[in-house]
């Protein structure tokens, strides 16, 4: 490396970001740059002419030497361009990981070797760290109580734990490298993939931490319900997905059992509500007889008037037409009473839907109107205009109103009060609630009874069963409302219940 070309080469060496050392075929250093001085902690003159083994104790000089099997050229040719990881030794004896790249340099003294030496401590540390992490991760995987499967973005399984082997009935080597679809046929791989709308990272981000219920398939083809939780894992190969897979067969069974019990309880509640309605209708016989007798009276009288018309000459067809029209109207009216009665007696699952409470209350009030008339009670409806719809079962809510109205009328019967007025009032109470009040002018509730009236089998009536208010309250509860009672300052009691406003619209 002499003369002009030598000078140029030296310039190139100094410009290189790596430590550069030029070595001859005897393994002696002939040239080096400033980076090499700094890296190894020597002054230049301390290294030139010295064996390269002093700074790279192993693996470099050996590569340059001919041996029995090959020439020096061949030996070198094998190494050209390859990154070789070795250890560098500083003047103070400390060592550090290096990567060297070799290239040949023809010179007057024969072939020289230029070695670009890169300090890879940082990378090595990172790799070591990663290896540790991987080791730890593997440890964690095995320690996890759930089956754990790590999947890459192609949907292939790259890692799994013992639990996963057991759960799915495969040996580890039967699963690694296979598509995760083999053990989770649907809903998992799809979640990892990018589509037109989102990147893989976004797709994954949407699923992280969420419990997803899917179906697992064992090697023998049997399937079982699983819940998977996904978490991302950055790795050299890109983002991997760790899936914790839990067998939820037991839980599903427990849930089914719970659901069954809930259904049974609900069925029981519905049966009770129905029994309550049947009892209520028992109390309504007076009302029903009255409500049916009125149209029947009109029908009979009209029909007999019609018969009389037929006995006259000339035949008054106009009057006959009027009579028949009235008969039809009254027949419809009687039919309505029956229809209302049947809808109240209907047995079946409650149908929760948005409904017009005012309308339902008007119908309930009609059912008791005959009773009210016979008992000399005026029912006054004070229904708020534009009342928002509530969500509930129409029949059960009518049952609530009927029970409260009948109770109110009973209370007034006992009081002997002359002015028997029962007010049925609706109003909105805040943004989310509707309130219904049934206010009587009866005897009121005694202090001792106040805390007990909603209890099952508690009654103040001589022939009462003590079911009415308990059922009424349970219906209100199921509807997400509250039933309460208080005495009016001017006598009598008010029973009031709230219901949440429905946002479905009627």
């Amino acid at each position, binding site marked *: 490396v002499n003369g002009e070309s030598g000078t140029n080469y030296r310039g190139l060496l100094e410009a290189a970001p790596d430590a550069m050392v030029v070595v001859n075929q005897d393994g002696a250093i002939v040239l080096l740059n400033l980076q090499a001085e700094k890296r190894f902690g020597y002054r230049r003159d301390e290294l030139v002419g010295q064996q390269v083994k002093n700074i790279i104790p192993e693996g470099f000089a050996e590569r340059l030497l001919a041996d029995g099997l090959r020439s020096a050229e061949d030996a070198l040719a094998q190494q050209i361009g390859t990154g070789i990881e070795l250890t560098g030794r500083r003047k103070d004896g400390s060592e550090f990981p290096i990567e060297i790249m070799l290239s040949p340099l023809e010179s007057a003294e024969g072939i020289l070797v230029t070695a670009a030496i890169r300090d890879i401590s940082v990378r090595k540390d990172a790799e070591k760290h990663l290896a540790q992490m991987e080791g730890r991760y593997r440890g964690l995987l095995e320690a996890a109580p759930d089956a754990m499967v790590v999947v890459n973005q192609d949907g292939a399984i790259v890692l799994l734990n013992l639990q996963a082997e057991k759960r799915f009935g495969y040996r580890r080597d039967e699963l690694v490298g296979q598509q995760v679809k083999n053990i989770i046929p649907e809903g998992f791989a799809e979640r990892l993939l990018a589509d037109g709308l989102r990147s893989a990272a976004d797709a994954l981000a949407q699923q992280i931490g969420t419990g997803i219920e899917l179906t697992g398939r064992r090697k023998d083809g049997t399937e079982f319900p699983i819940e998977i939780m996904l978490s991302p894992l950055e790795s050299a190969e890109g983002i991997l997905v760790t899936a914790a897979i839990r067998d939820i067969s037991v839980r599903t069974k427990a849930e089914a059992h719970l659901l069954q019990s809930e259904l049974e309880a609900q069925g029981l509640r519905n049966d009770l509500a129905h029994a309550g309605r049947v009892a209520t209708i028992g109390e309504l016989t*007076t009302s029903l*007889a*009255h409500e049916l*007798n*009125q*149209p*029947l*009276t*009109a*029908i*009979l*009288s*009209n029909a*007999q*008037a019609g018969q*009389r*018309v037929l*006995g*006259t*000459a000339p035949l008054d067809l106009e*009057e006959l037409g009027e*009579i028949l029209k*009235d008969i039809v*109207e*009254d027949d419809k*009216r009687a039919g309505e009473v029956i229809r209302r009665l049947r809808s109240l007696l209907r047995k079946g699952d409650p149908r929760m839907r948005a409904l017009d409470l005012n309308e339902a209350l008007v119908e309930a009030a009609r059912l008791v*109107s*005959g009773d*009210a*008339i*016979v008992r*000399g009670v*005026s029912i006054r409806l004070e229904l708020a205009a534009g009342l928002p719809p509530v969500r509930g079962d129409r029949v059960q809510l009518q049952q609530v109103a009927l029970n409260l109205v009948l109770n109110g009328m009973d209370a007034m019967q006992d009081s002997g009060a002359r002015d028997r007025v029962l007010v049925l009032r609706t109003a909105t109470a805040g943004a989310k609630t509707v309130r219904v009040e049934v206010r009587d002018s009866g005897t009121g509730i005694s202090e001792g009874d106040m805390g007990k009236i909603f209890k099952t089998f508690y009654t103040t009536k001589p022939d009462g069963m003590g079911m009415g208010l308990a059922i009424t309250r349970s219906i209100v509860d199921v509807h997400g409302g509250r039933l309460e009672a208080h005495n009016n300052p001017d006598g009598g009691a008010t029973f009031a219940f709230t219901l949440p406003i429905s946002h479905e619209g009627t």
Partner: protein
Amino acid sequence: VPNTTRLVSIVDDDRSVRRALRRLVQFAGFSAETFASAEDFLSSAALDRTACLVLDIHLNGGMSGFELQAQLTADRVVIPIIFITAHDDVLTREHLETSGAVAYLFKPFNDELLLDAIRGAVGGAATHGLAPVS
């Protein structure tokens, strides 16, 4: 006295019943006026002309039929009363039996029962106002 001059007043809170009874009574040859409440009847000019009162017991709101009867007695207004009711129970029957009414009928009732009671109340055998077809 022709039947047409004999006024039968009907007090019932049910519009259909009022219309049907008015027809029957008119076909039988009487004049008929109907009232939806006891109060309406008491304040009407018909009060003095009424030969027979067909009175529903259970009136929606206001005075009951029994209360109207008591009021008439207190006012010394003597009108034969035929009670009608859609409600049949022991208490009502007891009250009816001691009420001094010329008749009481449970709804729905046959036209002849009502008309016979009216004829009995207004006195004498009433003749039909309209000639029957032969």
